[in-house]
Each structure stands twice: as structure tokens, then as C-alpha cells.
């Protein structure tokens, strides 16, 4: 920072580096360094390009992968006709427009937010977009990454830019020491519970503090991933040695310009004295493992807690919302979370399907048997391969889990993996919305070790009792 400039946040720096043209324009253009594309939110965008005979401006800054619709079993033969068309369409579109594509049988295929970091494509200081709200995941690297709609996908394809208004800056400082049995997932669920599902609206949330600095990249990704569940436009974490070590030597990491890149990355963290529009502090020392009870990610309590009573809520709209949630979830106020029986366990999704997640869950289930239906869906073919190398697949299968191929799977139930009406699921995914995991299905969000513990116990349980 030169002396005549005011201190800047990480967000401000990335924003300023990517502004195209005039700062005073009423429609500021933000340049996009990396555009990730999947099969569900892109067909209409490519159709738009074709209609007006437009090209993709920077196909080499674009990568496409199928993930939402892909089956996690028997993927050579896709039975769902509509899914098949959508998947074929992505392949055709990427071929026609010269975009790199990881096909379904490629070991690099996986959930789009798993493979960006895995390939080393996600790097500090970049702008990254995708027609998917969980693009916020990539913020863990100190990249400004956010989800966009299909019209904006088309805009980025055609112009490599977006028309944007700057977001506000929010900082959440996590203080204290991570208690035993508490994971990154519990931290982010705790944060959403505290600030609410709209607590971050209009803001980019920068997570900071010793707790964040000590987290692995995978934990940081889990936190940034669910920023959208707090309504934030994006999540950000300052890049540091842990970030650089993660990126180094990955297939798409900078090679001959590595030293230049790292020098630039080191200047990215927010300057001392930088101003935030909102600041929050969360002390984590006494945090228990967190579990959701309702149909919004903000409906979260400690595993030691009880289902809350809507009658204690003074805001009438909130009270009505809670009553609707409890009715849908078939839960009564005052029920202990640990008394809630589970039918199914899902370990997967862009929130929690990386190798560390699978290792941690495998430790809990090793030598035990599940009392529920249970499945593990690795985030990518490479994660699956690594897990198999370590024998994790065997541990899961011996315990009664199904071991599947990679994809979004039961996080959003677009493929065959879905809950039946009334089924209750302990899930490591990110959304407990009505019908999210299948029409009439009921979702409780939690960490991979908590979900593994629920599978073994047959009900929600404090994982610390099993360690």
C-alpha cells in the first residue's frame, strides 16, 4: 500500500484490480478471471449466444463440468431422459464454443466447486463466477467468487465481464480455540444461526482471526461455501502460507510465474485499519457441534439443545415461519435434538465431500455398523481415488454405507438420489429447505463426523460420545 492511499480490505483490492473502464460509470464492469460452467444453469445462455451469433470471448478462461444431474451409480447408462439431454447439451455447447470440458468418465469430473481448487484453477486475487450460488466456496483462497443467474452466465460468456455494484464489507472475527469435536461446519452453522439467513445480504463476509488462520484449506472452503446461506454475496479468507502450499504444484497452478504470483498474493490481505461496514465477533471456545432443526440454515442449535418453541418468538412473521418449519419437519417444541430418529445419512456435497471430510467420517464409523440407510458421495473422481487408496471406501462399505461416484447427488436431489416423503436425513450438505433433498424429505444439516455418528446411532447424537 502506498502512503497516500487509505487502507483497503481484501475485497476492495480485488474489486479495484478488476474494474474495467471508468470508476464513475453508472454500470461498472467487473472483469472475470475464471468462469465455471455446469449443465443446469448454462443451456439457455448458450442458446442466447447462438440466437445472436455471439462468440465466447475467452473460452480458455472457462471450464465446464457436469455435476448436478449426474447419476452416482451406473453412470454409463443415464436413464433419466431429461437429465441425459441436459448433459449431452453441455458437451455439445462446450465443443461448439471451444470450452474445456471434463466429461463424466474423466477422473477429474466432480462437483464444480471441488474441482476448481483441486486443479489449482482457484487462486488468490481472482474473480470467479459460476451459475451456482455455492461459488462462494472459492473465497477460501482470497478470490472474489460468487454465484450468478443464467442471464449473467450469458453476459460473462459473451463479454468476460459483469455489470456489478460493489458489495459492502463485513468482517467476522472468530476468536478462541476450537473445542474437541467441533469442525469448520459447526463454525459456519453457528455463524448463520447468529447473524441469520439474511445477515450478510449486500455484503461480502471476510472471515478472520486465529481460528481461521489455523484451519486447513478444506475447512476454510466449508466456511466460505455456506456464506450464501447467510445471504452474503461472497465469503473471503486472506491467503497465507497454508493457501500457497495447497495451490503449489497443482495441475493449473502458476508454474514459471510462481514467484511473481506469490509476491502479489502476499499483498492481498486487508490492510491494517481497513474499514468494514459491519463487524462481528464469535467466540468459539464454548461452541458445541451444531445441528439444524428447521427449514432454513439459520434454524440451528447445539446438539445438546432442544427444538425451540415458536411461542417464545416476539416477531409474528418469524413465529409463523417457525411453526411452518416445525410442521414440515414433524417436530415438537422442547424435543431434545438427540432424541430425533434418522432414516438416512448423506455424506457429500460441495460443502463437505473433500478428502479430509471423508477421513474424519471414516474414523467415526470404523468397525461399527450403520442403523440407517447411508451413502458417501465423494466430491470428485480424484477425491474418490484418493479415498480408495487410503482404504476409506472399505471402512464405509464394511459399516454399511453405499460408496458412490462423484456429483451433487442428494444435496439437491436432481438425480436418482433423493429422500422419500417423510424420510429424515442427517446431511453434510448446505440447505435444509423444504423438499431440497426430495419432495417431503426432512433434512438436518451437520458436520461429516456428526452425520457419521448419526448413521451409527440411528438418531442424532453428540459425536463426542463416540470418540
Amino acid at each position: 500500500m502506498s502512503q497516500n492511499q487509505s487502507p483497503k480490505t481484501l475485497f476492495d483490492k480485488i474489486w479495484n484490480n478488476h474494474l474495467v473502464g471508468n470508476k464513475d460509470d453508472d454500470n461498472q464492469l467487473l472483469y472475470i478471471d475464471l468462469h465455471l460452467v455446469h449443465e443446469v444453469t448454462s443451456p439457455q445462455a448458450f442458446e442466447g449466444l447462438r440466437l445472436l451469433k455471439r462468440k465466447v470471448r475467452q473460452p480458455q478462461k472457462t471450464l465446464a463440468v457436469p455435476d448436478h444431474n449426474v447419476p452416482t451409480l451406473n453412470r454409463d447408462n443415464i436413464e433419466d431422459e431429461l437429465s441425459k439431454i441436459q448433459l449431452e447439451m453441455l458437451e455439445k455447447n462446450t465443443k461448439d464454443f471451444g470450452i474445456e470440458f471434463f466429461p463424466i468418465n474423466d477422473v477429474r469430473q466432480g462437483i464444480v466447486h471441488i474441482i476448481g481448487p483441486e486443479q489449482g484453477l482457484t487462486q488468490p486475487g481472482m474473480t470467479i463466477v459460476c451459475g451456482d450460488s455455492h461459488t462462494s466456496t472459492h473465497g477460501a483462497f482470497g478470490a472474489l467468487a460468487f454465484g450468478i443467474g443464467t442471464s449473467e452466465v450469458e453476459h460473462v460468456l459473451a463479454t468476460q465481464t459483469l455489470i456489478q455494484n460493489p458489495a459492502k464489507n463485513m468482517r467476522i472475527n472468530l476468536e478462541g480455540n476450537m473445542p474437541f469435536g467441533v469442525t469448520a461446519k459447526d463454525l459456519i452453522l453457528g455463524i448463520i444461526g447468529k447473524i441469520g439467513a439474511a445477515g450478510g445480504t449486500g455484503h461480502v463476509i471476510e472471515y478472520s482471526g486465529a481460528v481461521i488462520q489455523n484451519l486447513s484449506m478444506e475447512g476454510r472452503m466449508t466456511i466460505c461455501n455456506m456464506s450464501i446461506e447467510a445471504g452474503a454475496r461472497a465469503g473471503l479468507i486472506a491467503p497465507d502460507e497454508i493457501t500457497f502450499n495447497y495451490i503449489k504444484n497443482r495441475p493449473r497452478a502458476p508454474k514459471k510465474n510462481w514467484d511473481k504470483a506469490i509476491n502479489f498474493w502476499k499483498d492481498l490481505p486487508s490492510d491494517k485499519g481497513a474499514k468494514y461496514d459491519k463487524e462481528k465477533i464469535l467466540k468459539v471456545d464454548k461452541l458445541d457441534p451444531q445441528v439444524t432443526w428447521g427449514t432454513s440454515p439459520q434454524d440451528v442449535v447445539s446438539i445438546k439443545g432442544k427444538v425451540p418453541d415458536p411461542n417464545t418468538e416476539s416477531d409474528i412473521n418469524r413465529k409463523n415461519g417457525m411453526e411452518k418449519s416445525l410442521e414440515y419437519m414433524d417436530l415438537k417444541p422442547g424435543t431434545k435434538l438427540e432424541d430425533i430418529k434418522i432414516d438416512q445419512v448423506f455424506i457429500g456435497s460441495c460443502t463437505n465431500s473433500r478428502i479430509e471430510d471423508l477421513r474424519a467420517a471414516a474414523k467415526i464409523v470404523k468397525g461399527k455398523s450403520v442403523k440407517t440407510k447411508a451413502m458417501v458421495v465423494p466430491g470428485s473422481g480424484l477425491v474418490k481415488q484418493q479415498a480408495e487408496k487410503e482404504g476409506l471406501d472399505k471402512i464405509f462399505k464394511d459399516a454399511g454405507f453405499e460408496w458412490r461416484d462423484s456429483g451433487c447427488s442428494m444435496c439437491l436431489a436432481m438425480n436418482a438420489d433423493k429422500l422419500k416423503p417423510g424420510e429424515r436425513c442427517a446431511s453434510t450438505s448446505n440447505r435444509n429447505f423444504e423438499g431440497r433433498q426430495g419432495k417431503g424429505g426432512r433434512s438436518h444439516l451437520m458436520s461429516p463426523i456428526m452425520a457419521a455418528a448419526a448413521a451409527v446411532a440411528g438418531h442424532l447424537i453428540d459425536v463426542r460420545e463416540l470418540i
Partner: protein
Amino acid sequence: MEKFTKLSGVAAPFTRINVDTDLIIPAEHLKTISRLGLGKHLFSYIRYNEDGSPKKEFILNQDRYKKSTILVTGKNFGCGSSREHAVWALSDFGIKCLIGSEFADIFYNNCFKNGILPIILDQSYIDKIVKKISFEKTSILNVNLEKQIITIAYDEFLKFKIDPYRKKCLLEGADDITLTLNKDSLISKFESNLKKKFPWLDR
């Protein structure tokens, strides 16, 4: 894109909080490669019974609200998934304007790309409007984007704020991409600087 200038239409109150885009259009209806025809799936999980018949209690199934063009919404409407299908479904159903105290960012943005006007007002005004439109005689609202006002009675107006660029695009039915492509030389200039400044990003 279709222009939005003025609108006079029936407004339906749907004040549930945190209505997510999965509720607006469940994922099973996203297996389409078209923007069209999604109106029949709008709110499908809470709009239809198991046998496909309409649920009587759902607001948009009630006779007086069946032809609503305005939806008055609860806090944090449109949260969750970025799926623009939610806006396409609302639009295909006939909704042209949303009025609420808080919208989720991506959803809010998607509305403008499809000629839908999302209006943000203080919750106290939302409560007032909801009361008004709950009576059949006063369920029609008039919205004027040029003047930025909602008329809720002969002599009662509410002024709303809107970003000037977005307002302009709606009034003209402008196509963003065409406007940005006009700035091609600026983008090219940026790209050549980028190569020099951030050589490791040059792909």
C-alpha cells in the same frame, strides 16, 4: 427484454419469510434447456396436492389472486440457489412486480434481467400494503416506474428507490450484453494490461 413502465394489477400477499428459490421452483423442474413454460411448476410443492389438484389454501390458487401480476413478499424472498428458473417461473405465471422489504441478492439481480421489477420498501409499508390487498375491493395496486411510485388508493402514494441504471434498462427493455459489447475496446485494453500485470493468469 420486455419493457417495464407502468403496471396496474392484482397483488397477492405471500408474506412467508425466507422463501427460497427451491420453494419457488423445485430442482426436479430444472432439467429443461428452455426459459419457457415454467409457470405451471411455480411453487409446485406447496401449490398442488399429491394428485395434482390445486391446494385451496395456497394464495395463488384462490379465485381473486389467480391472475395476480404483483406478489407482496416476506423478508429474504428468493434466498438460496442462484437458479434464474425461479424468475422465469414467476414471469411465465404472469408476475411482473414483487414488493418486499428484503430480497436475496442473486434473485434480485435475476429479476431485472427478465423485466421483473422488485421493489424494496420498509417492512411497515409492506404490512400496510398487505392489509390493504387482503380486501378484494382494494387488491389492485398501480406501479409507475418512471415516477417511482406505488398507488395504493386514490390519494395514497408510496415512493420507492431504485438504482438509476437498472431503472433505465427496465424502462427501455435494454439488453445488457449489447450495451457491454459496445465497450469492447475498453475490455480489450483491460485484457492487455492484465497480461502484463498478472502473467500467471494468462491462459
